[in-house]
Structures are given as C-alpha cells and as structure tokens.
C-alpha cells in the first residue's frame, strides 16, 4: 500500500497553505496531495471572472507542477477521496486503492447545495464551483437571451452581472428579503440592487421557485406566487455545502455537523486527522460556538495552522476564530465587509450614507471596540480593520475621526499598535 507521512486532500487555498506550512518545518517528510479536480490548483473565488471572460481559464492557476516537484509533493489530481478509514490511518480513493498516512488534512472544500425543487432534475442547469463549471457557463452566457439566477449570494450576483453585461435579460430569484444576505446589510443591498436594476436586471427577492419543467428554450420556472419564468440559462447558486461524503458510514468517526468539527489547531476528534477551509467548522471569533466561515482568507489561515500543527512546528498559534471578510465588486463599484453584522446587546451601530457620492459606511461597536465595518464605495484597508477587531483595539479616543476617515485613522492606529 502506498504510504505517506502527510496526506493533504484538496488543492485549493487551505490545502496549498498547509503544504507550505508543512514544508517550512519538515522539508523531508513524504507529502501527498490528493484532489478530485483534474486541473492545476485554482481558487473558486476567481471562477466568476472566468465566466465573464476576464480571466482566461489557463491563467488562473495558483501553483504549477514545478511547485510540487520543488517541494517534493506527490501531486495526484483526478483522485477523489472516497472514504476515510481513520481507525487504520488509510484513505480510500475512488478507484478503490488506499493510501496509508501518518497525518491527514481534509481540505476538501464545498460543493453547490442543490435545493430540493421538484423538477430540477428534469432540466438543464448550471452551477459554479469548478473550473469546468465556469468554462461551460462562460460558453453558455454568450448564447443566452433569457437567464435566471437562483440565489443572490456573491456567486450568483457575479454571474448575473456577467449575464447582464453579455446582453441577456436576467432575473435573479432570491428567497431572502434582500440581495447578498449575510454579506451586506439592507442599505448596501439596496445600492447593489439599484445598480443591477439600473442595468436592466430583474430582482425578485422574497421569492422561491416551487416547480421546474423543461421548455422549448430550456426550463420553465414556477414561482411561489404562481408566476412563471422561462430561461434558456439557469444558474443554481443557492449556496454551498461542505464536501464530506467520504465520512459517511464510518460509525464513531470524525465528528461533523454542518462541517467537520475542529479544534483551535484544526484537529478533529480523531487522532491524526485535521480539517481546514470550507469543509471545516471551527471556532468563530465572536462566539465559542463552532461556525461555518467559508471564506478565502479563513481557508488560508486554517490551512496554515493545520499544516504547522501536523508538522509539529512549535510556532503554531491557536486559531483566533473566524472573522467574516468579504469584498464584492459590482458594476465598477465595490463593497467591503469586515467582521460581524450582528449587533450585540449594548452594541452601537453607526452609519453614514452620502446619496450624492453613493458612499456608505456602517460600523458596529461594543465598548468602543470595533466588531464590524461595512462600506460601499468607501475604501478602507480591510486587513487593518480586521486587526482592529482581532486586537480589540480601544477606539474611544478616535472614534469620530475614525468614522469620518477609517482609511487614514486605521493606518495611524496600525503604525502605533502593531509594532
């Protein structure tokens, strides 16, 4: 049986950071990277830009074969993990072969969550999680005249914008009351919505599709209120769910809820098994409860911690907890969100909105400590803001200046604080 000291499953941000972290401390131990994808490593986050054609599909790769060679990583693509046999430290692959590991990292990411809508399985629809999805969608967009996007998360919104720009009539159907729910607040969402409607898109929030059927051009959708839509392109972007089907049927195995439950060093309840990235459910920064924080920056952070812990690097520091971080570019405008949108008891929300410039800022404080900050067309250094949150910096002395100019004041605080 093939043996390896470190087995990393997955090939995106968390997995790649883990590889780097392992090799920082252990340059010799055998390392195998396993991925179901057949392409070189890439980021799901870049896929909307492949869809739009902005990023050629062959220029988005985060690593090349030379990287794996130089780091002495056995890189196996097109090899999906079928089952984890943690009790005997082996991983079973789709082809039935097994690999024995000393330590394994599950960085298997997430896959589109397909809603249980009757008839969905009868129609052709797109999802967007893999490069192959993106390439297909890119080709389809060019042909589409009537497109429907299910879900107004960032993936759906990106695709919708691309479809609008490609000349299709676009309808976005979202169950929630607002667009980009969970990323941006209602005010920001309204600004986003306005940008879309100004560009000809139709937004149907608070709506759900109850039935789907094939039609001449593609699919016929029936909404909750009885109206119907016909689409020659249907994109299902209603969220993602972690890839952890390989844990099924393992009995008393790796604990998982919405994701794989991990400690502050990304270790699961089972010896020699770690998890990181979109498939992991780790401590949140604002709560001791374990949360899903499936965002790119957190995947890198978790991947690094897992790699260091696996390699026994004494420099490993405990995961501080996930802080939501999102950026969104739409129709030439940008929105940034850092931290929590929830206003705790005794918390304070400050908003500033300039209708003329379209600049919007919202900040949430508790005891003069920043909990979250959101901006549309208001640029601030998200990384600096995140540090203000993580370090729980007391802003009482500068709060007004900070709200007026978070960019400059944030930088001043940075220079004084993190030396």
């Amino acid at each position, binding site marked *: 049986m093939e043996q390896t000291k470190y087995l990393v499953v997955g090939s995106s*941000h968390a997995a790649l*950071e883990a590889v780097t972290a392992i090799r920082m401390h252990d340059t010799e131990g055998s390392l195998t990277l396993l991925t179901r994808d057949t392409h070189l490593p890439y*980021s*799901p*986050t*870049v896929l909307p*830009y492949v869809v739009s054609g*902005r*990023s050629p599909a062959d*220029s*988005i*790769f*985060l690593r090349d074969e030379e990287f794996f060679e130089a780091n002495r990583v056995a890189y196996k693509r097109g090899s999906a993990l079928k089952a984890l046999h943690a009790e005997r430290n082996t991983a079973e692959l789709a082809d039935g072969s097994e690999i024995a590991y000393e330590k394994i990292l599950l960085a298997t990411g997430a896959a589109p969550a397909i809603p249980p809508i009757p008839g969905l399985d009868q129609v052709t629809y797109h999802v967007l999680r893999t490069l192959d999805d993106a390439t297909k969608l890119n080709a389809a967009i060019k042909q589409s005249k009537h497109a429907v996007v299910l879900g107004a998360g960032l993936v759906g919104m990106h695709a919708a914008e691309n479809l609008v720009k490609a000349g299709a009539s676009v309808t976005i159907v979202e169950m929630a009351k607002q667009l980009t729910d969970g990323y941006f607040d209602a005010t920001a969402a309204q600004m986003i919505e306005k940008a879309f409607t100004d560009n000809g898109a139709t937004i149907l929030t608070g709506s759900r599709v109850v039935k789907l059927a094939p039609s001449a051009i593609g699919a016929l959708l029936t909404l909750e209120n009885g109206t119907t839509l016909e689409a020659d392109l249907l994109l299902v972007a209603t969220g993602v769910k972690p890839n952890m089907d390989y844990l099924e049927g393992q009995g008393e195995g790796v604990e998982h809820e919405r994701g794989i439950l991990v400690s502050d060093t990304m270790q699961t309840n089972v010896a020699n098994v770690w998890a990181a990235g979109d498939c992991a459910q780790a401590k949140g920064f604002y709560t001791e409860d374990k949360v899903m924080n499936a965002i*790119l*920056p957190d995947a*890198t952070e978790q991947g*690094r911690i897992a790699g260091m812990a696996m390699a026994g690097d004494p420099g490993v520091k405990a995961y501080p907890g996930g802080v939501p*971080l999102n*950026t969104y*570019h739409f129709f*030439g405008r*940008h929105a*940034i969100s*850092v931290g929590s949108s929830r206003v705790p008891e005794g918390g304070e929300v400050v908003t500033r909105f300039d209708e003329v410039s379209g600049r919007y800022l919202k900040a949430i404080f508790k005891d003069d400590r920043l909990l979250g900050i959101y901006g549309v067309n208001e*640029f601030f*250094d*998200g*990384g*600096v803001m*995140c*540090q203000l949150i993580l370090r729980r910096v007391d802003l009482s002395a500068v709060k007004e200046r900070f709200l007026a100019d978070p*960019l*400059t004041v*944030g*930088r*001043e605080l*940075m*220079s*004084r604080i*993190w030396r």
Partner: protein
Amino acid sequence: MGKSYNTIAFDSAKCDGCGDCMTACATTKTGTDDKTRSRIQIVGSEADGFELALCRQCGDPKCVTVCPAGALTKNFDSGVIDWSDTKCVDCLLCTVGCAYAGIALDAGTGHVAKCDTCEGAPACVPACPHDALTYITTSRIYNEVGDWEDLFAPGLAGCQGCNTELLMRHTLRRVGPETVLATPPGCVPGMGSVGFNGTTGTKIPVFHPLLTNTAAMLAGVKRQYKRVGRDVTALAIAGDGGASDVGFQSLSGAAERNEQILFMVVDNEGYMNTGMQRSSCTPYGAWTSTTPIGQGTGGMPSQGKTQDAKNLPLIMVNHRCEYVATASTAYMEDLYDKLDKAIAASKRGFAYLHVYSPCTTGWRFPTDQNMEVARKAVETNFVMLWEYNPTDGLHFTHSADEPLPVTEYLKAMGRFRHLSPDQISHIQGKVVENLAFVKQMAHREN
C-alpha cells in the same frame, strides 16, 4: 536557504510630514501629483508623530495567499511582491489580507496599487528632504556572506548584546580560510577565538599574540608566506588597548614598514575584557573602573576620565598606510565596503580598519541597544566614518553634516550619566573640533 532583499526604511523621528515622498511616488507612478494615489502613505500628525503605510514586501505575504487569481507573487529575485494587471480581477481581497495597508485601491485606476520599489530605485527616497526614508541595500551582504563558511565555532562566549561576535563572524567569512588570524588578549580571545585548554575557537589558524606584539608577529607570519609564494591573508582583530596603548609601538612599526597585514581594531574604548579600565581610546568624561566617580579630595570630585581619547585612526593616516578607515557595525554596508578595500590593500601593504564597538557591559546600556548606540555615535559625529588611501586621500563615507547634539549619544548609556554641563560642553566642543580637523584633512588630502 533564505535570501535577503533591499528595503525602504523609515525613520519617523526625522519625518515632518511634508509629503514630498508621496508627491514623488504619485508623479512617478500615476503621472499626477495626487498624493492619495501614492503607494507610500504618510499618516499622523506633528503632535503624535508621522507614520508610514507602505508595502513591507513581506517574506510570507498574506496578500499573495489570499489572492484568488494568482495576480500577486513574491519575486524571489527582487524580493518585491509583483502585481499582475492582467491576472488581477479587482476583487480587493488582497487589501483584506494585508494588515499593513500596503496594498490599496487606487481610485484613479480602479485597481489595487502597491509599492514596487521602482525596480530598486525608489523615487520616494531621494525626494525626502530629511533623510527619513532610506533605501537599505545591505541585503547584498547577507546574500553573499550567508553562503560563505562561518569560520568561528558556534557559541562564542561574548557578553549579551555585544556586536563583536557579529564583527568576527562577518570578517572571517569575508576574509576566508586562507588566513592566519591574530587575536591579542582582550574580548576577542576572551570570547573564545583561540579556545581554552587545548581546544580552538576557529577553523583557521589562530593565535594569541602578546598584547604588545600583534602586528610584529603577524608581519613575521605574512613575510614567510610571501617568501615561499603562498597568498595568505594576515589578519589581526585587536582591541583598542592592545593597539593604542601597549601595542602601539609594534603597530606603528609594522605600519611604517608597510607590512602586508590587515589590522582591525575593535574599539570599545577601554580594557573591557579585564574589567572596564581606561585606555587611551576612552573618551573624556567616561566612567571606567580606573576613572571612577567619587568625591575626590580638596573639593575636586572625580568625574570620569579627564583627558580626551587618542584618535588612533588619524595617527594611522599619518603613517600613510595603504588603507585606513573608520567603521561602525550600525553601518554594515559601509563596513563591508571598507573590509573589501582593506583586504585588497593588505595584499599591497598595511591596511588598518578601526571599528567602533559599543560595549553593553562597560558602557552601561541595555543589551538590545548596541546598534542604536553605534548609530547615535555616528549621527552625533562623536564617531565619524571616513576612509583614506594615499592616492585619493581622506574622504567621508557618511555625511557629517547636520549632526544631532552629542547629548543624544551621551544619554544613551550609563558611563556618561554623571556628566556636568561643563563636561558635556567640553565633549560637544571636542566633537566640533574633531570634525573641523578631519574636514581640514579631507580638504588637504583631496
């Protein structure tokens, strides 16, 4: 393993917030004078001091790891984090990754922008009218020297915070294995250069001359190798006492005979290894264990050394050596440049390198302050950095204009704590006089 890169350094104490650096950057990079578009951002105020937001060109850059498009890459040749406009998708995730505001949105282009050091010639640095920005190019030393063999044993027994070990290791690495090393009594053998009880501290031939005869013994070694046609570098790493006091005769004799040796003096301004006694290189007013502070007799309190230091490097210039230079470990690039020249000169004749070496134990300053004390010595002109050779004469290698007041140096350490205003003004006067003297010499020699 490991590579060092040049970097832009910022001294907030020198910055007055004029913004000339931002203008220079904006002009160079955007063709406008819009400071908000500068990639170097000065923030802060006169009251609270000015600070800098600029790409640190991190070795382990978070912006690169969070970029989904592979648009940011650490360039391991230049050390710069390169940004690709063709790969970038304007998602701004990099700005969320960076904790230093080193990459930010340029409203003028809609893309992120970051410092690229103008390909190694940053426009902001010369634009600063106060030298608050400097482009540190010492990486060359680390990168070159890092691959050379360290010829000293690991774990030399220096005092904590001493810079002499650094000097020893760097010098030996540069000089290389075809060397005979003399380390007369003092801190250098005290740290273990010649070993103890039959062991050795170096991988090259090393000896312990007398305090008095270093230059003479070394001359004998060198002459014999020259006679038999072997190119061996003869190097001394000596203290100031063994050079300026009891060893001066042999030093002067060897210099006069133009013996082909490289004589490095590590000047810690006293007999620090034997317990911090005064030497002729001890400066006026300094406490040492033989110029202590006390009540004195007849109303004449004892207030440290009552004479000025002997200026040994200038005396060596008057030997018309092949090469004479002063150096400081706070200016390693300058030191390395001089070391290169001194080695070359020692193949033709006598080369003399005088390195000022703050002594954390004997000068009484915190162990983490060695480089700062060394730097302050130069910034106040208490120590001047210059070099001399018979063809080009004497010239400064570090500007002696606009020095800080000498008190900036004196207050950095305990050995001057007792100074009276009169003593301080004597020292300041001596600094001015020394500068005038060396300047005159530089003028005459040129």
